[in-house]
């Protein structure tokens, strides 16, 4: 075996190679806030979305704690208590959806990894990328404003001063769905600020999408045909299509809502001659595809993690790639399944129902492919792998419970109940969150050159899985029994489910703190990570950890991204090393190693 350690300073122990990586390249806060480096932008996004996740999480804890009792928990009168709860679930949903789950995987992991998977120096339009980050920051400031306003109002309001009232929004209690006419005619006055925030956040999403599509088209390296692209890139590509096509609809809908709320233009409010159901069509025309903005990249991460940690070529590459595109396309045609009881005609309901079932098939294909990838593998129970296995469990369950909702007559019974809450948390939280964690743990060594503690990470992941199921499984039962969602108070028969759920939420909180603590601990005293700690073959592992500012000193040539045979475990150095002979024999591949 003529094993050569890769080029790019992974075994070349020259200190200058080590000292200059993207983290040390440029100092000072400005070099981060205005960096054009996709890796730094990815990390900035990470800090941002994790902050949003934390705030959304605090609200989750507040509302779950409220639900320990059907009566008063925080205040002394019912109206205040219900209002507080309504604000909590609205802000929980808005922070989690618009500022965390939608950007989490594309903007953090995608930004960091995508150019490197392409062997490129950066994305196609680095300035646009920075613009996207700033759109996110500015959009989020609006939400911060709503949040702060809500707190000030709760503490000191209502304000006598006209300007104080106008400038300090009284929180947000529309639900993250902003259904009209409640949102335009009745709700607390943070609606305007929140909608502006969503409008701007939308641009962050669009710009990322444009950038990724352009980058994938233009910057693929020598040897990387479309069907040699890592599956994560396929899924990001599919996601980007949705981001570009669907987000503008949300933006326009938001503007129409603003026009109605501030100028009294009648669009959705029947009192002004509008149609409130039209709003639901507009909203879900974005927000259903948005569900796939959350889950498609998650599926991409899982494809990468499973093959890397089972050291097996992914099973059924083409089916997985095509299914991403199929999901993206179909996702535009199913929004009406949110309107089955709105008075939509039975014919429209039937069409949306059948299309909804159609989209279940490509999702099922992926699950089967992932499990088959493990067949005859060499499975390592690393933290990313445990997270990926948890993902499969939760996604299977979340996906299958979707069948109950797609079936028209059943949906009539469970829509608007906790069944829905449980279903979409399994998909959006269980699955997308676990995929995000899997990705963070998988690429953490690449990002910071440090290994995370496997034991702590695995315990946290398993605890999170347990806590998650405790929280949300019982909600299926509560929902099937008829408990509507967004209920601040509830009939006593549901008490046991609500209490179980809240306990589960606390377990989740503990597990997530462990997860986060473990990641941070790795930065401080983690073992130094080699260039390729998992022996994976996608291109980002062909450069040093953490990567240099330009990613690759020498432009790499891509082979089969899942050809695990090209990396061999070297007992002496306890590292994965590139087997050049093997890499060369992979059809169409030129050696990825250039000696210099």
């Amino acid at each position: 075996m003529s094993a050569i350690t890769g080029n790019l300073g992974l075994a070349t122990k020259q200190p200058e190679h080590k000292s200059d990586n993207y983290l040390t390249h440029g100092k000072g806060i400005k070099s981060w806030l205005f960096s054009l480096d996709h890796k730094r932008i990815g990390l900035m996004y990470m800090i941002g979305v994790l902050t949003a996740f934390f705030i959304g999480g605090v609200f989750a804890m507040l509302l779950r704690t409220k639900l320990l009792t059907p009566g008063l928990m925080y205040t002394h009168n019912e109206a205040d208590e219900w209002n507080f709860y309504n604000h909590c679930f609205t802000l929980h949903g808005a922070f989690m959806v618009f500022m965390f789950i939608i950007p989490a995987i594309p903007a953090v992991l995608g930004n960091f990894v995508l150019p490197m998977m392409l062997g490129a120096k950066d994305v196609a339009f680095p300035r646009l990328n920075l613009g996207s980050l700033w759109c996110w920051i500015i959009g989020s400031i609006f939400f911060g404003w709503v949040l702060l306003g809500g707190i000030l109002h709760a503490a000191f309001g209502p304000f006598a001063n006209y300007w104080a009232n106008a400038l300090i929004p009284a929180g947000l209690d529309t639900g993250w769905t902003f259904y009209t006419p409640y949102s335009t005619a009745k709700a607390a006055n943070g609606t305007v600020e929140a909608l502006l925030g969503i409008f701007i956040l939308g641009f962050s999403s669009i710009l990322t999408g444009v950038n990724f599509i352009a980058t994938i088209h233009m910057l693929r390296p020598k040897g990387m045909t479309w069907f040699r692209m890592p599956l994560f890139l396929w899924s990001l590509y599919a996601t980007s299509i949705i981001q570009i096509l669907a987000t503008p609809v949300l933006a326009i809908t938001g503007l129409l809502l603003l026009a109605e709320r501030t100028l009294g233009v009648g669009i959705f409010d029947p009192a002004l001659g509008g149609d409130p159901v039209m709003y639901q069509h507009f909203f879900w025309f974005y927000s259903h595809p948005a569900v796939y903005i959350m889950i498609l990249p998650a599926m991409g991460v899982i494809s990468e993690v499973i093959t890397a940690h089972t050291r097996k070529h992914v099973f059924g590459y083409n089916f997985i790639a095509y299914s991403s595109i199929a999901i993206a396309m179909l996702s535009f045609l199913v929004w009406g399944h949110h309107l089955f009881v709105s008075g939509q005609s039975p014919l429209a309901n039937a069409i949306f129902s059948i299309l909804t079932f159609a989209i279940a098939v490509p999702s099922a294909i992926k699950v089967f492919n992932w499990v088959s990838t493990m067949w005859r593998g060499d499975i390592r129970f690393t933290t990313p792998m445990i997270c990926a296995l948890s993902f499969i469990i939760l996604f299977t369950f979340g996906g299958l419970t979707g069948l109950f909702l797609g079936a028209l007559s059943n949906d009539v019974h469970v829509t608007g109940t906790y069944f829905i809450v449980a279903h979409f948390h399994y998909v959006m939280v269980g699955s997308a969150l676990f995929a995000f964690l899997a990705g963070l743990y998988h690429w953490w060594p690449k990002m910071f050159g440090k290994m995370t503690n496997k034991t702590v990470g695995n315990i946290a992941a398993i605890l999170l899985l347990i806590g998650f199921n405790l929280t949300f499984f019982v909600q299926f039962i509560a929902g099937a029994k008829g408990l509507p969602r967004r209920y601040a108070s509830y009939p006593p028969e549901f008490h046991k489910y609500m209490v179980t759920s809240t306990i589960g939420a606390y377990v989740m909180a503990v597990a997530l703190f462990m997860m986060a603590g473990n990641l941070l601990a790795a930065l401080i005293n983690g073992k130094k990570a080699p260039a390729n700690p998992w022996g994976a073959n996608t291109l980002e592992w062909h450069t040093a950890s953490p990567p240099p500012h330009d990613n690759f000193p020498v432009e790499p040539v891509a082979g089969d991204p899942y050809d695990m045979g090209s990396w061999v475990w070297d007992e002496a150095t306890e590292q994965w090393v590139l087997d050049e002979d093997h890499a060369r024999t992979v059809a169409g591949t030129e050696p990825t190693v250039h000696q210099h």
Partner: protein
Amino acid sequence: MLKILGSIYMPPEASTVAPGVDWLFNFILGITAFFCLLIFAGMVVFCIKYRHRPGHQGGESPGHSTGLELTWTIIPLIIVLVVFFYGFRGFLDMSVVPPNSYEIIVQSKMWNWAFQYPNGTVTPELHVPKGVPIRLVLTSDDVIHSFYVPAFRTQKMSVPGRYNRAWFQATQVGEFPIYCAQYCGTSHSKMLSKVVVEEPTNFDRWLEEASNPEKQTGFTPQKAGEDIYKSRGCIQCHSIDGSHGTGPTWKDMFGSKVALSDGSTIVADENYVHDSVLYPTKQIVQGYQAVMPSYLGGLKDKQIDWVIAYMKTISEPYKKSMGSSGAVPTSAPMHKDEPARSAGSNLK
């Protein structure tokens, strides 16, 4: 067996469509269980068999298998088509209203329900005869609500500005909760009511009584007024203890002077109350918003009289005026020295 199991996760089956829905639910549950077991078992077996350990080598295996992949594309496709079919069929049963059904208008507003029967009677709880198809026409005065009766597996949004339809036929005598299943603001979770299913003869008797409270034993106008206050939604916005809600309190309101938003004042007499209830936007009380819904067509004059009778029992100014002059107050000012009552002055 399934029925017993079902009672763990389903509400009682009290309508004609409920057994069908539950059958489909259990069918999908079976599919879910089967695939979960298949996938989880596969994962567990692979995780044990192919776990990394000293001496273990990952084997070679094909990178794909078109036959296998087509199989697991086509089988799920067939299954979901079957589920779609049964779901759609069940939905048609729910949507096609049988002829000769009994029509009840469901009026929803923040945050209560009112049910109007063909003879014009309106009640806060829904009473229906067992075994008779009931056709609901759903309307909303303000925002979107959703009329949901878990025991009937029936749900439909009530959307302002349009009429939605739903129907059901109860199969079981009893009381079943009605929930609002579409978030509608502060007291969404208290927008509750119940369906009372009765034998047809009992239902007829009940409706007869409900339409003529005077015939009920123990009837007094004051008590009937209080019932309306509690059951027709006034209680949501008007307090009787002096505290401010969405609307002004009724304590000491009748017979007092009321400051209006146009700067004038008016004495709250019978005409004023009558107009406030039927044409609420005509005179707006200072410090309040014009959010009170009109009860034109909702409350009959006789019922408004009862409400007035009730208001009088909780109003000191009125009782005082009765004590001094002994006459029913007219629109002539009575307490010249008293400042006009308005919420604005209290809010400052």
